[in-house]
């Protein structure tokens, strides 16, 4: 009987231990497990359309990539460089224009559902005028490429060295929703650093350090 009680207590202890372990490990990440991670975003922004079809340069929006550790997510006003005019898809706007022409009236402003979210973030109304009763808020994008806190990756260093964005991020210009392509593990990083030391980047010789302190400090 006593043995049984001990066993039960042990089992409860172990179950509790497992639960705590699982809970604790929620924060753990094994890098290669993230391959293919493609979370839903607050706005269904299409890189295929912008970077692929329209061939907008990556750094037109991700301006930090050249100068900073972070490539940066463009601020909402960057979107407004185009979307102050383009408020919906071309087809819809063209249809409305034709309809308006035929009815001999001014075309109605049409705002697509996706862009509505952008304008909401900037607190703009139907006519893209600032709303009085609302304040602008950031769009809460979900990060796709995450590195552990003890790893310091610097975009600027890689862009300056001529490494293409696709080398790490994959063919983003073909992705409707961004997906993590490479596993971003340390082995993957170090392999590339070793390769380019032999082969160079775009034919240019480079020195990619494999010292620990290149990324960890």
């Amino acid at each position, binding site marked *: 009987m006593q043995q049984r009680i001990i066993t039960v207590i042990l089992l409860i202890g172990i179950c509790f231990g497992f639960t705590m372990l699982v809970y604790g490990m929620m924060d753990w*990440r094994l890098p290669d497990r993230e391959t293919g991670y493609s979370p839903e975003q607050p706005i269904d922004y299409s890189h295929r359309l912008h970077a692929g079809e329209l061939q907008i340069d990556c750094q037109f929006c991700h301006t*930090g990539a050249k100068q900073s550790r972070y490539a940066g997510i463009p601020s909402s006003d960057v979107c407004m460089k185009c979307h102050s005019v383009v408020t919906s898809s071309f087809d819809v706007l063209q249809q409305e224009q034709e309809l308006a022409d035929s009815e001999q009236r001014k075309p109605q402003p049409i705002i697509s559902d996706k862009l509505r979210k952008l304008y909401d973030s900037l607190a703009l109304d139907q006519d893209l005028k600032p709303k009085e009763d609302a304040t602008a808020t950031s769009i809460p994008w979900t990060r796709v490429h995450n590195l552990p806190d003890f790893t310091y990756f610097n975009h600027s260093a890689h862009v300056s060295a001529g490494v293409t964005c696709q080398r790490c991020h994959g063919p983003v210009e073909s992705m409707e929703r961004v997906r993590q392509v490479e596993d971003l593990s340390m082995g993957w990083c170090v392999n590339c650093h070793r390769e380019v030391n032999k082969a160079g980047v775009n034919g240019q010789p480079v020195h990619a350090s494999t010292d620990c302190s290149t990324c960890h400090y």
Partner: protein
Amino acid sequence: MNYSELLNHASRRQFLEAAGFTMSLAALSGCWRAPTVTALPFVHQPEGVVPGRMMSYASTCGGCPAGCGLLVGVRDGRPLKMEGNPEHPLSRGGLCAIGQALPLGLYDSQRLAYPLRDGQQATWDEVDGAITKQLAALGDDDAVVFVTSTVTSPTLQATIDSFLKSFPGGRHVTLDAVSSSAILDAHAETHGARLLPHYRFEQAKVIVSFGADFLGAWISPVEFMAAWRTQRTPTPDKPVMSHHVQLEGRMSLTGANADRRFRLAPSEYAAVLSHLAQDIGKRAGLELPTGQPPKSPLAQSDLRDLGERLWNARGASLVISDSQSIAVQKLVNYLNHALGNYGQTLDIEQPSRQRQASDADVAQLMADLKAGKVAALLVAGTDLTQNLPQREELAAAIKKVPLVISFAERADDFGALAHYICPDNHPLESWLDAEPVSGVVSLSQPTLQPLGQTRSILESLQRWQGRRVSAYDTLQAHWKDVIAKRAKTSSPFQVFWDQAVHNGFVEATAAAAKTTDFQFDKVSFPESQPAGEEFELALYSKIALTDSRHAHNPWLQELPDPVTKATWDNYVCLSPAAAEARGIVEGDLVKVTTASGVSLELPAMIQVGQHDRVLAVALGYGVPGTDRFAKIGPQWLEARPTVAPGELVGQNAAPCIEYRDKALQLALTNVTLEKQPGRRDIAKTQRYPSLKVPANVAPPGAEVREAVQETTLAAFAKDPHAGTPEVHDIGAGQLWPDDHPKLGHHWGMAIDLNCCTGCSACLIACQSENNVPVVGKDEVRREREMHWIRIDRYYAGDDDDLQTVHQPMMCQHCDHAPCETVCPVLATVHGAEGLNEQVYNRCVGTRYCANNCPYKVRRFNWFYYERDDDLRNLVLNPDVTVRTRGVMEKCSMCVQRIEHARIEAKRLGVPLADGAIQTACQQSCPSQAIIFGDMNDPESRVSQAKLNPRRYGVLEEFNFQPSVSYQRVVRNRDEEIGEQHSTGGDHHA
């Protein structure tokens, strides 16, 4: 097998199998997906702001009235790292520990975030309305007193003046917690103008200081250190340097750096000065002071030598004193005048404005308060009741004042008595200016929006005069009307202003102070005071906590005092002889009672070099609210609180101050000392006074290593390599193969010990840059402090001629690093550029490396150190990993800065220039003692420094090949044998 079967019949093996399987499943499911991380971009990205890039804004340090130039490093909207502004004419790129610790003060969650009315949260409208009403009700006879610490800001001064002008009974009283009032009053008598000279140590070939701690906490230490060091670099071609003599009662940092140090009780300054004055006065053929000089406590030969040196360096010598006796200061003025130093080493045409207090005004205010003659009391920048004696009477008197307003950042001692607390912005949140020295106007700019609903004092004062003007507009208007005109700029104001904001300062000549000829009749020899047997008490301020204003900053509380090496406490320093005579050992509680009956009960600190009749207690402690630090540091089973229940950090020594001779006296005579029952441990970071191994613990045949080296100028002039110890060849060369070629860069550091004063600015700079945790008093006591730099302090010589060396010691980045060979998991490895890299994510915490480190510079994270305060966490540098429990850490030579500079150079397509990388300690060093650079570049400054004949490496004989080298101390003395810190002399063990 079902569950009940498992429970009843499972063998141990089966059970473990099942458990293991469950566990792996759980583990796998646990780390399947990372938690979602959200990234919030700007809505409108401000021009020039790039997330992740550090921006530097020129500003002025608001930590004390010294007004050093700042470059505030702002990253992603938060000020993180303070750097000295290299172009600033006063501080020249250095910054002290207090300046470095500013961000932690900014992110203090206990700073008031809103105004208080009778201790209750209020809105600005309520407070403004009530105050305006009460001010309007004041009659013509009612006294309105505005008390501030020294105001160096021309704009704030003008705003206060204009505010007080609206009240017939308005007056401004300046109160300095550590006042220099006597210097100003002495000049009022001898030179006809109440001013503080601008001391110019860069011109001084002979410095004689009577107690003035000018390299520590006296007036403007960063500026003085920067100037002092220019005379401290002898070269083989030009073996000259300044001669610095310190005569003092307590052991100060300045005394520790002196070429010759005499023990002299503060009451004896007058006698020695009198004899010097007589000597120099005769030589100069000037009218002598009236009376007879009292008997000198110094030997005639020493006096003659001092006089000789001063006279030979006339026009380039400097006599200073921190005495609060006007008679003493007048003798100092006499000496400087007779030596022709005015206009050379002391500037009184463009005087300093860093201390303006008139203690007579303060005494008058105290009398008025007690007499109930004050109708309104406004206090800014100082804690009136905390920093003055007779606290209880004063507090009772203040309670009777009808209107009491405080501008303090928290409900401090005085604030608790105030009807209204109108919290001023933190210096990093506000527009302000400063004119620390006439002619140099420095500008402060905000680096973030105020965190709370605090308001600039400029704005508050304008508001109460019925004007809604922002601090920015007030400041700009004053600059347009006054400063721009003084600067005699030809460009339009906007251009001038933009330039000033960019540079952080302007040179704007002020009208020369109106002085008279030297008034000889005002100077007299003081009456003879026979030295009694009673103790004297010297109240002083520490480097980190000048007065009560920084007491809430844990970095500064945990900064080891450069001389005593104690943290988290104040104590009574007494000499070893005095302690022995009374049977006192370190940590014993002692009671100090002044002649006026005020007593303090504090632990004793045995301090070599201290005068046998002098006790010393630091001001700036015992600040209300510091009991918040009781639970700082790890809370574990055996943890002891940093602050005992019901107590504060240290004890306030200000009640001992006496007002006498028109000044608040910080040096008191007729003090008694009694041993009390009980002890209080003092948490020190260094417990051994010299390198000599005490005989009782030395193993037989133990050799002593010359880790610090020292020589004299006379020896250096003969042989620049003088002081090199004999090194035994111990043939350790074969242990490490030369398999690290270091073909690219090879980073190294050179530290000139002759310039290093031990001021510890580097320590806080490093703490701020590298996210070094605060561990609390108990952990320091257990020798578990986490600072990456420690400053070793070694004594040699005897009490009457003590010679001290300060040696910053951090990871030496050995090319043959003993730590690397023992790490079982390769967590500490050698980089291709010579850095000894510590990889936190690999470290499993065996601590082998720390045991094998000959320099003992590795720090182990025994705990998760407190990171619960979200606001405080904003101070963390995002470029450096926050280490976790069980991980070893140490100086990385700011590898994040190396990487940043390298990447920047690559981005801009330029070579990595010498000087492009500055480590945090190097940047902060007020005396520019630290040089970092590429040892593979023969032209680099560090390579040049390594060729210096004074160069040596610590424990080099073991072939560790440290990348950090030192330049040995040269003391400007005539004898040719330098003191040996390890073998010679009678050492204090």
